[in-house]
């Protein structure tokens, strides 16, 4: 592979439907409550946490409402509105990426080509409705309005509550429809001393702002707890939902401490035809990997030093421009622009559901600065006349390489590849009949892919254990007979 022939055509993976991660959406009518995906920027600096929630709400904005547990009573200065494009920029920069290489023609010298790759946007819709909030007698419910702020287009209340029934009734009285299962998680948050950050949209101020969408809300607080409360968001979620976490620290990677954090499969060679379906490819790869990891792991998609003043390679290939000073400022990475130290960027993708994620996500900042990116490789074949001996040798190698690519694609996604025989046949067609005859052998997997999953090693470990237990029993029997 020659670097001169390297051309980096990249893709960003589509942003799926984005909704709030930890709030539940509440509805007055019997509209189905459904969150699919949310995006969160998480900045951790010592005991300080800055959380930005994307609020990329696809329904009617007047229906938007959100309840988020927070560890302290936030002051007005702790809450701000940031620009939506910070999420777009961070997503684009850290997305799983496709890289293309071109082979040299061994019969000629250089070929050079360029390509652009288009990306399918995959979206889904969700809906939720919330009525306007009415005043309620807070004393009746043991609910205290600790603070009330108007920030941008949002009306924000910080609620303290004594017990979950009171809070639940207060929300109901104020026109929020609480999912039935919300009750079981409100109580633990109240007893943990959490406050509730309750947000709705003021339509007049939204119109005055000139925006026709909701901008992300950012909150900052000091707390030794470094976590994301996902349980409340599950209250109205059917099945599983996705969350992308863009985390920034001074020292290194962020990892989950109560679930496994695993890298998504990366640096895999895949067939050329996967390019047009790259969005689908990554979605299927992610789903398959999530299954293989037992549906209870956090996927690492990107980890890199993004310090503005750092001279090292920022990505390979770069999917988008690195975060700009304005984006760091918007994200709350306030030390980035004054040369205040390293900025390390971790992107995690969590697909979570009630069954496999009973606990809220707890994180820790580690000194781990090892870089990682989700990267998939396409290699274009050499073009031109390949009839020389070296060219025929090359085609044979290409045939085997494509066999491996097909196997890899099948293992990663489980796609039915029986319609893609032409991918192999076009190589065969260029070989002389004598050479072609030597290339037999199955290349389409006939049974399910056998991932290197947690069950892969099970037989080995169980066998080992059985052996040792046997040895131990043997010894015990001998000891007994001697006695």
């Amino acid at each position: 592979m020659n670097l001169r022939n390297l051309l980096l055509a990249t893709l960003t993976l589509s942003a799926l439907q984005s909704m709030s991660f930890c709030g539940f959406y509440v509805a007055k009518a019997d509209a189905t409550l459904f969150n699919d995906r949310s995006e969160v920027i998480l900045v951790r600096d010592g005991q300080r946490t800055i959380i930005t929630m994307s609020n990329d709400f696809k329904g009617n904005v007047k229906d938007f409402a959100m309840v988020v547990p927070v560890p302290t009573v936030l002051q007005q200065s702790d809450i701000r509105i940031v620009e939506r494009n910070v999420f777009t920029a961070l997503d684009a920069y850290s997305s799983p990426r496709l890289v293309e290489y071109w082979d040299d023609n061994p019969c000629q010298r250089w070929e050079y080509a360029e390509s652009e790759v288009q990306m399918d946007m995959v979206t889904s819709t969700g809906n939720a409705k919330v009525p306007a909030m009415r005043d309620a007698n807070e004393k009746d419910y043991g609910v205290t309005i600790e603070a009330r702020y108007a920030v941008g287009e949002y009306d924000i209340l910080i609620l303290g509550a004594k017990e979950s029934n009171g809070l639940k009734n207060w929300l109901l009285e104020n026109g929020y429809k609480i999912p039935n299962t919300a009750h079981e998680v409100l109580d633990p948050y109240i007893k943990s001393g959490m406050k509730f950050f309750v947000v709705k949209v003021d339509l007049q101020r939204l119109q005055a702002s000139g925006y026709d969408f909701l901008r992300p809300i950012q909150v900052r607080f000091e707390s030794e707890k470094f976590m994301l409360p996902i349980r409340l968001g599950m209250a109205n979620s059917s099945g599983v939902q996705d969350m992308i976490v863009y985390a920034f620290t001074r020292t290194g990677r962020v990892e989950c401490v109560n679930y496994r954090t695993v890298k998504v499969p990366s640096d895999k060679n895949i067939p050329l035809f996967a390019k047009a379906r790259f969005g689908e490819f990554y979605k299927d790869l992610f789903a398959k990997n999530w299954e293989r990891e037992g549906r209870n792991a956090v996927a690492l998609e990107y980890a890199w030093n993004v310090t503005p003043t750092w001279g090292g390679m920022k990505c390979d290939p770069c999917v988008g421009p690195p975060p700009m000073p304005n984006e760091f400022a918007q994200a709350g990475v306030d030390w980035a622009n004054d040369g205040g130290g390293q900025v390390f960027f971790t992107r995690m993708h969590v697909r979570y559901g009630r069954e496999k994620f009973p606990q809220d996500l707890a994180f820790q900042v580690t000194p781990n600065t090892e870089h990682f990116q989700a990267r998939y490789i396409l290699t274009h074949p050499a073009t031109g006349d390949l009839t020389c001996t070296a060219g025929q040798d090359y085609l044979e190698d290409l045939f085997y390489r494509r066999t491996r690519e097909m196997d890899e694609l099948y293992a990663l996604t489980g796609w039915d590849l029986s319609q893609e025989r032409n991918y192999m046949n076009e190589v065969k067609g260029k070989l002389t009949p004598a050479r072609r005859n030597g290339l037999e052998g199955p290349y389409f997997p006939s049974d399910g892919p056998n991932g290197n999953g947690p069950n892969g090693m099970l037989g080995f470990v169980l066998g080992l254990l059985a052996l040792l237990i046997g040895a131990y029993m043997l010894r015990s029997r001998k000891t007994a007979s001697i006695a």
Partner: protein
Amino acid sequence: MQALIGTSTRLRSFIQDPRHFQIVFLGGFLTYGVLALGWDSQWMRYATLFGTCVGIQTIFIRWKGIPWSSLKSAVITALGMCLLLQAGSIWTLVFGATVAIAGKFLLRWKGRHIFNPGNLGIAAAVALTGDAWVSPGQWGSGAMLVFLVVASGSIMVLRVGRIDTSVAFLGTFAALVYIRTVWYLGWGADVWWHQLTNGSLLLFTFFMITDPMTTPRSGKARWLWGMGIAVLAFAFSWHFWIHAAPIWALLLGCALNPLIDHLMHGEPFHWVRPAPHAQRTF
């Protein structure tokens, strides 16, 4: 026939020393982590820990004139550290492993080392270098892993007679977490179960805290000691929000051992009890 008897004798002498079990089990978990849980195969990291632990132990064996069989303990320490300690630089690992083994020979009280070597090395590397960390989430809470750790751990602690420590620690810790999580906060029992079935916690329970050389000698004292470490670990976890809390709790627990042994007497532990008929092959 002769060969059969020879094999049988070798097997007997193999299983007489619990350290062999420990090496096999810990080695199995490391293999499981790398192959099944998809850990990075950091061979340099593993080689560094093994090399340093065995190297430092060899120096002390030559210096102090102790038996070569004590190398097995160094291998166990290295395996334990491979399973728990992560670091950015191999020098951090060298430091941690050196502290672990050297601490065994230098931090002594009445002829007995005070700290659990792996525990001391990990704590020193994390606290002093800023380049090391422990990943409590790396094992996950898989049911099969939990079974394997508990099953093999039980064999292990029964062999060394430290089931009391494991039960005292895990029982107290589980009870405290249950009281907090389910009774007080009102989370469902599945949250509690998920907190307890953490692979790191179980490995700690069966393979670290039970080191017979650094647990109190008196049986009663071990019950109290295990419970005390559980209380500390609980407080560190949920009051101070320290991850990998049992590591720090055990460090404090070990520091109290000289006092505990002074107050409550017990039999010293020997890895292999003198057995005139057993032919030593290691």
